[in-house]
């Protein structure tokens, strides 16, 4: 059985010069704090760092903050760093494993370490690997989207077509992931087949129209009188193609260089602005009392050191000036290239003129059209044949996949798991002071949709039943891992003095024993949790006195990530 555990999270705001590190127990954790102390921020940032974006806005949060989650999968530790859209995976020693700017690249990295191999269909019926939002969906109750009747825990889930059922069936092993892989491929083939049929019908209609019009074009005209024009046309077209290709390549390289230069100027100017702030600080404090404003460390700074520091800034300023000159030059080169592209249009005009050339009563364009009409019917026939072949091959693939899907459906196992789910749901309802209901028809992917104070308890009972059937057993490496259960904040809809203790006691004692649990709560409770994390200061989650330590730890990782991302961009040869 694979176990995924959160070990700690580090949050760093360079803008506010504040930071915070929070460590988690591998068992049960209770995050305590009044409103606005940052409980939801901590839980949301766990998932955002890993590439799943929870719904709900965080008021007053520095969205440029750097976050780092240390997690373990079985005994292997990883660190995941996130800064803006950039994410990187490191091993326990801080060696970079992978860095990504695009979400698709990150999805591949995340899925490879978690063995998450569920394939879904997107809205256009294309197959797409499920992402970290899908991975955490059954295990996170988000205060801002999960306590209602719909699956609104994460943003952008709607890009997948009906993802909930396959996700729940994947984690509960009702249907193995191979079934969804085959289904997704089958859906893709079905869509392609429909497109193929549409194309075939359009082609047949066009062919029929052309056949009706062909007799009107008359007898075939000889092209012998137009030999020189044909030769010239071929030459012009070849020239045009070559010029177009050269211009396209040049424009591509120039635009890439321009965006690289612009990006570097922006970053360098930010660094220089930071230097100016630091220099201003030195001006105010002087060399003989150089004490770091953040960590309080005393530095032995010499005049030579200050000179070198100012000189580094001057050197960067001078490089930025040269980069700006290169930017201007590139912009002017791109403009020139655009001008050349316009010049090509005159070549097109020359070709048009050539087509208007007359020999006696015949135009050169008539020759081209006549030759084309004759061969067009042949081309239509060939294409129709290709499309028919393609349809046959698609139909046979669809049939093969349908047969394969049937072999993955095990009715007995499906019934056993459904029964376990229904029993667990019924028990949890009882423990959470909800009236007994007939659960024999309940489906795993149908959330309860009640109103009033019973709703959050019914939702919790539902999730608890899901977690019961999603608990991995056995040592099958292909099984989905055990995922931490995160419940942001169970005190919903005004629970009274009977129901609230029942909820907390349920969370403390009734969740799967092997699972890591993170619960947020407003007030202290007597129930047993392995670790209590207290957040006491409203809007004071991040602390000034942790900045130096966390910053020292994350800066090196950020530098490695940025260097890797930059290298991957620079190494792409245009």
């Amino acid at each position: 059985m694979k176990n995924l555990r959160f070990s700690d999270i580090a949050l760093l705001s360079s803008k506010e010069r504040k930071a915070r590190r929070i460590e988690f127990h591998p068992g049960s954790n209770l995050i305590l704090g009044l409103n606005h102390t940052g409980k939801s921020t901590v839980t949301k940032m766990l998932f955002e760092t890993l590439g799943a974006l929870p719904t709900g806005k965080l008021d007053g949060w520095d969205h440029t903050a750097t976050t780092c989650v240390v997690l373990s999968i079985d005994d292997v530790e990883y660190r995941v760093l996130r800064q803006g859209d950039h994410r990187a995976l490191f091993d326990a020693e801080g060696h970079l494993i992978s860095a990504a700017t695009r979400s698709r690249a990150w999805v591949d990295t995340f899925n490879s370490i978690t063995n998450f191999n569920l394939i879904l269909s997107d809205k256009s019926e294309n197959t797409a690997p499920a992402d970290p939002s899908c991975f955490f969906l059954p295990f996170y109750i988000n205060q801002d989207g999960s306590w209602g009747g719909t699956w609104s825990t994460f943003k952008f889930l709607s890009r997948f077509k009906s993802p909930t059922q396959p996700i729940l069936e994947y984690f509960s092993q009702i249907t193995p992931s191979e079934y969804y892989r085959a289904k997704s491929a089958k859906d893709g083939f079905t869509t392609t087949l429909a497109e193929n049929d549409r194309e075939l019908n359009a082609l047949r209609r066009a062919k029929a129209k052309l056949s009706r019009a062909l007799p009107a074009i008359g007898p075939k005209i000889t092209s012998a009188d137009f030999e020189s024009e044909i030769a010239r046309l071929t030459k012009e077209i070849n020239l045009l193609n070559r010029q177009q290709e050269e211009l396209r390549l040049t424009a591509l390289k120039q635009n890439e260089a321009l965006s690289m230069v612009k990006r570097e100027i922006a970053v360098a100017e930010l660094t220089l602005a930071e230097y100016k702030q630091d220099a201003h600080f030195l001006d105010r404090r002087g060399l003989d009392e150089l004490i770091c404003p953040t960590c309080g460390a005393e530095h032995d700074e010499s005049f030579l050191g200050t000179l070198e520091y100012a000189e580094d800034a001057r050197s960067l300023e001078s490089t930025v000036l040269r980069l700006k000159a290169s930017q201007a030059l590139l912009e002017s080169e791109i403009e020139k290239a655009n001008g050349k592209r316009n010049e090509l249009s005159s070549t097109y005009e020359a070709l048009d003129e050539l087509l208007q050339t007359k020999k006696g009563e015949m135009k050169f364009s008539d020759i081209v059209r006549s030759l084309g009409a004759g061969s067009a019917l042949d081309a239509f026939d060939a294409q129709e044949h290709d499309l028919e072949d393609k349809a046959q091959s698609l139909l046979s693939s669809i049939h093969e996949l349908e047969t394969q899907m049937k072999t993955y459906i095990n009715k007995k196992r499906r019934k056993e798991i459904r029964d376990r789910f229904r029993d667990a749901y019924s028990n949890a309802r009882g423990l959470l002071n909800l009236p007994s209901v007939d659960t024999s028809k309940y489906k795993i992917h149908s959330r309860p949709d009640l109103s009033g104070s019973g709703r959050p308890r019914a939702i919790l009972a539902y999730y608890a039943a899901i977690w019961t059937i999603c608990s991995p057993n056995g040592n099958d490496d292909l099984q989905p891992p055990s995922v931490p259960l995160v419940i942001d904040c169970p005190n919903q809809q005004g629970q009274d003095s009977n129901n609230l203790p029942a909820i907390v006691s349920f969370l403390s004692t009734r969740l799967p024993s092997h699972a890591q649990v993170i619960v947020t709560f407003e007030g202290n409770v007597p129930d047993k949790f392995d670790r209590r994390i207290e957040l006491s200061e409203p809007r004071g989650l991040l602390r000034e006195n942790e900045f130096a330590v966390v910053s020292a730890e994350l800066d090196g990782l950020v530098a490695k990530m940025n260097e890797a991302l930059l290298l991957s961009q620079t190494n792409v040869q245009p």
Partner: protein
Amino acid sequence: MPLAHLYLERTTVHPDAPEDALIGRANLLLTSRSPAHAAQAKTLVQSLFVSVSAKGRHTGQCQTMEDLRKRRGFGRIDLQKSLSELEKVPDLASLRATWMKRLADEGFNFLEHTRVEVALSELERERLSGIASTTEDFQATLAAWVSQNSPDSSLKSFLMSGAEQLTTQFPSISRIRLYAHY
């Protein structure tokens, strides 16, 4: 001290950038004393401001003139020491500008040239932010190669053969970034 040694001149000083008024003066001084460092006038003035402005902020009373001189004074000898320190800092900005121009003159491809400028800016940025982007091993290998080779005839060939030499030992560093390191 004879008052005849004092020279006062009225000049306009912007409160947010007081050093601007002095950079021209510092340039004149450096041009006559250390022409090789004349371009570093701004650096000198900024660093002097750090030293001098701190002295003006001591508010404790001084009992004697000697005490006053020791705690808040910045005199000719201090300035001479500062100038000597500046002479220890090579004018890398000018050297880099000269090299980049030389590369362009030697017919280095413009787009490649721009990429080297970008890589150079990255390195300078990292240095200014105190980020160590390379290992000591790399720095030592680079220094050893530079000490045995010089860009006398062609800077382009110097950079290309240097990068070729180091790329086998440090394959994770791109060729363009290696050029910038030289």
